[in-house]
């Protein structure tokens, strides 16, 4: 019991993932600044933002539904903490951990941060937040379809294994899935879905700062906003690690370059694209991305 609590709160769970996520978000801001020929913030800037937000006053709008307004940031944070604890533990020790069907549980838990944002923003009672919510719901429906279809590819290629630790050990004996044709197609689809799940620039229409003033987060302040920001930074660790686990032979402390490569891809996509409209995003995910994912599944059934 104590061991599980330690795992959840300190070592691979909350604290550890939060520190790595803050470092990753600093790298993101610094590289973005360098791309735009700026100097960029110092290394402690994301930590300072979180500390500053957590000591500010929490304002609650009069029209808000109070319980849901306070509860929804906690839902998102606890879900992403559980996912990151699970993925870290499986990757540190692939022999003993996990249960059958844990891929499906992680799939559901990865949807929960978006659900938490939707619940909290619609509880805040702001018209711009409700506009952001409608965009977020459409975006979730758009990217979940190709995400789930391309999740089938590693399951087919490992002959029906539904346990993450078994998928890692299958890849260590038979080579990574990303080296095959269907694997690389599904991996590319997953990278675009990851960009949308993180809410980064081509797909950040739910919190469009210049358009609907931070959209879903518009009424959040203080500690609650800090929790939402922390959820997003921790998702920036959990999602790339999930992709590496599924397609790229898993992860240990020596192969940190895999994470860095995925992070650089995210940042480059973010800095070279303008924000798309919500209808363009839905067309992109339900059109090209779903088609690519289906082709990957067919190729995987054919053994490519």
């Amino acid at each position, binding site marked *: 019991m104590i061991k599980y609590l330690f795992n959840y709160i300190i070592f691979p769970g909350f604290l550890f993932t939060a520190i790595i996520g803050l470092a990753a978000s600093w790298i993101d*801001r610094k590289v973005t*600044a360098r791309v*735009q*020929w*700026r*100097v*960029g*913030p*110092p290394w*402690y*800037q994301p930590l*300072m*933002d979180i*500390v*500053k937000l957590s*000591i*500010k*006053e*929490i*304002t609650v709008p009069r029209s808000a539904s109070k319980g849901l307004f306070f509860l929804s940031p906690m839902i998102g944070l606890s879900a992403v903490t559980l996912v990151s604890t699970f993925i870290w533990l499986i990757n540190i020790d692939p022999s003993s951990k996990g249960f059958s069907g844990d891929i499906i549980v992680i799939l559901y838990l990865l949807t929960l941060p978006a659900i938490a944002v939707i619940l909290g923003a619609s509880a805040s009672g702001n018209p711009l937040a409700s506009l952001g919510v409608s965009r977020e719901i459409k975006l979730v429906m758009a990217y979940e379809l190709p995400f789930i279809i391309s999740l089938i590819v590693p399951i087919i290629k490992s002959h029906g294994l539904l346990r993450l630790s078994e998928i890692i050990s299958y890849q260590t004996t038979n080579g990574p899935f990303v080296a095959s044709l269907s694997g690389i197609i599904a991996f590319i689809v997953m990278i675009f879905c990851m960009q949308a799940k993180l809410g980064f620039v081509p797909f950040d229409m739910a919190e469009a*700062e*210049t358009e*609907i*003033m*931070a959209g879903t*987060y*518009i*009424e*959040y*302040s*203080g500690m609650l*906003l800090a929790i939402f920001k922390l959820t997003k930074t921790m998702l920036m660790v959990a999602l790339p690690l999930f992709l590496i686990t599924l397609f790229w032979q898993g992860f240990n402390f020596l192969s940190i370059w895999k994470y860095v490569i995925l992070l650089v891809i995210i940042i480059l996509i973010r800095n070279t694209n303008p924000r798309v409209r919500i209808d363009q995003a839905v067309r992109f995910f339900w059109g090209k991305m779903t088609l690519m994912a289906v082709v990957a599944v067919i190729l995987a059934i054919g053994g490519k």
Partner: protein
Amino acid sequence: MNIKLKALTKSIWVYHMSTGSCNNCDIEILDLLTPRFDVERFGITLVGSVRHADAILVTGSLNLKAIPRIKQVYEQAPKPCVIIAIGACSCGQGIFRNGPNCPNPVDSVLPVDVYIPGCPPKPEAMIAGIVKLIKELTGKK
């Protein structure tokens, strides 16, 4: 220096409130985010919602319609929150001193912490004003 004060002064999120300005100060404020000045070095970013703000930049000669709005915006901001008056109009009403539409200076309505004069003030002047504010808050001379 304690960690609270350090966090508050190292990460100032700025909300931009125009109370009937001629848009000149607003353009100069946006200049601060360009590569030449880059205030993100000091952790200063522009936010869209006043709920996230640590500082409210007031520009323009506060006209009668804007007075209830700016009071409401200030009440919506989470405290601690500072108010920075930018430009000659919001510091001392500028050329609208005898105008019938803007009888109240900004500091008769809100507790202004920093005055940055100029029509419009240069971006260097705004950075100097912010630096003076941070020095005042942290007590360093």
